[in-house]
């Protein structure tokens, strides 16, 4: 039979769930929370145990979920959890331990508005929490920002690959809009799960039972010897540096001749993409730098564009978090302004274009 493309109409959360199954996931541990409950629901109805042998378990809390992920990751398994903002706050303890023990895993935050219980509507106000740490200690995790349902799917395999390449956590920082919206998704072939033998061969550090041919393995984030612990932390930092050098991802939309620039990610980037079209129809040369990795952040690309454009407007569904990194990249070269909607409101393309014009174009004094 000739291979036909497997294209489906799916919710973002469902695409993520189908993505992890097809990427060879061994275990998913999660707890329901709006707006990402479809992940656990989808996995439950898929009978993953029969499909691929993948374990799906509803835990008693997000705290338990992330520590179940820790246990599985310590055995070299491809493990996943997902949640939304309040649940992700609960998981911060586990993230810190995973970082300290250098365990690979895939996480997803379908961000909703905060602080506190906030709202179930989409938001991007967990940027700092995701890219600046969140839990205690000096650590980072790779943060991928999908802007479509297709990317919710695609980033699962990419996430696993990066997680195991660097022995690190990878977080997909989505939002309530991307998680809930339906779009077409092109699916790949099933990647087989690794056998225990393959895992042991590939990852000699895993705890799978001490055999006579090796020393015991242990997974820990503890080292009470200050000198050793400093060396360990420097090793972590070197790893994050390497990630910054190798893994920056972004998309330039109409940037080549841009005089004004949006910087955005996720849902906001979709809004900006339309605003770019509207602006260009009016004769304003606007471009969009869409961030795909939030850590590592594309500081260099931002710096390059800062020399080219006359103004940068960051669009976020937050009070202004990513703008701090944009300003670090710009380093004073050009004016950077922020516009964001809060409370779970998505800005409209006309709205952000209007802000761009108000802040940079209408105030421009022509010689």
């Amino acid at each position, binding site marked *: 039979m000739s291979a036909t493309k497997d294209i489906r109409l799916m919710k973002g959360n469902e695409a993520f769930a189908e993505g992890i199954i097809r990427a060879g996931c*061994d*275990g998913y*541990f999660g707890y329901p929370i709006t707006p990402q409950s479809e992940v656990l629901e989808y996995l439950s109805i898929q009978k993953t145990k029969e499909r691929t042998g993948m*374990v799906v*378990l509803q*835990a*008693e*809390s997000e*705290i*338990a*979920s992330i*520590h*179940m*992920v*820790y*246990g*599985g*990751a*310590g*055995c070299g*398994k491809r*493990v996943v959890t997902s949640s939304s903002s309040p649940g992700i706050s609960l998981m911060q*303890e*586990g993230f810190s*331990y995973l970082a300290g*023990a250098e365990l690979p895993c895939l996480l997803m935050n379908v961000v909703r508005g905060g602080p506190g219980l906030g709202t179930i509507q989409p938001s991007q106000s967990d940027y700092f929490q995701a890219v600046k740490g969140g839990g205690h200690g000096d650590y980072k995790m790779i943060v991928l920002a999908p802007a479509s349902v297709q990317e919710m799917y695609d980033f699962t395999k990419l996430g696993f690959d990066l997680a195991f390449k660097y022995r690190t956590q990878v977080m997909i920082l989505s939002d309530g809009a991307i998680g809930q919206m339906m779009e077409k998704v092109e699916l790949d072939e099933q990647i087989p799960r690794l056998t*225990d033998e393959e895992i042991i061969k590939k990852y000699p550090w895993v*705890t*799978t*039972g*001490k*055999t*006579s041919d090796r020393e*015991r*393995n*242990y*997974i*820990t*984030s*503890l080292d009470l010897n200050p000198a050793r612990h400093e060396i360990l932390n420097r090793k972590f930092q070197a790893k994050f540096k390497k990630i910054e050098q190798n893994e920056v991802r972004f998309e330039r939309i109409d940037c080549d001749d841009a005089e004004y620039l949006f910087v955005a990610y996720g849902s906001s980037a979709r809004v900006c993409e339309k605003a770019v079209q509207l602006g260009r129809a009016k004769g304003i040369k606007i471009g969009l730098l869409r961030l795909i990795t939030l850590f590592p952040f594309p500081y260099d690309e931002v710096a390059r564009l800062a020399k080219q454009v006359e103004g940068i407007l960051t669009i976020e569904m937050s009070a202004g978090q990513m703008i701090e990194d944009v300003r670090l990249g710009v380093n004073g070269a050009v004016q950077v302004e922020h516009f964001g909607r809060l409370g779970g409101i998505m800005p409209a393309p006309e709205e952000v274009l209007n802000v761009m014009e108000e802040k940079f174009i209408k105030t421009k004094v022509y010689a």
Partner: protein
Amino acid sequence: MLETLPITKEEICKPENLVYSRTHLMTDAALSYCPGCGHGTIHRMIMEVIDEMNLQADTIGVAPVGCSVLAYEFLNIDMQQAAHGRAPAVATGIKRLMPNKFVFTYQGDGDLAAIGTAETIHACNRGENITIFYVNNGIYGMTGGQMAPTTLPQMKTATSPFGRNVETMGYPLKITELIAMLPGTYFVTRQSVHTAANVRKTKKAIQKAIEYQKLNKGLSFVEIVSNCNSGWKMTPVEANKWMEENMFPFYPLGDIKVPK
């Protein structure tokens, strides 16, 4: 008439006469525990059973936060160190993905019965096929002897310096009895290691727990009431006596739930 001994010390101490030595499943590292602390004995009993059942290559242990946080330095098996209280969740993750391995947690009373209560109760209630070794000494040892969920009424600790007042500080938690009520647990017992006879009983309980894990019938839970002579501010021998007189009446030894 004084008989001269027919055998010299050198003749006795030959390999063929060896009747007891530390199992090779304990590493050579000096234990970080205080003199007389039960942890060392409990570690050794678990390792003896794993050795005798030839399970070293099939065992994954989970160490807690507390005095036994460094258990992986002493036990010559693969181990994971868990966050405070989360060992049952970590063990769940391991066992679900490695169902043919023997998976156990080793937890103290602060770890298991305070901060980790939810993880403990739910792992037990799900009937996870893991084994929990629960060391109860009624105090937070590592942090310096503060009040634990298991601290006895009127017992003095660093944070109950005038004795635990149950009216303001709550009651000691008999979590083992609570766990025994859950349908997910298969074998629940309470032992001690302060005398040789009790060590032998504890070892039997450990053997049973491991055998039951192979049956996939649910969670086995072995509490070991132990001493904390540093926290209790007694000599090790006094601490063992105090434990008999005060801990055992409140935490009576014996099986609490046995398979029918």
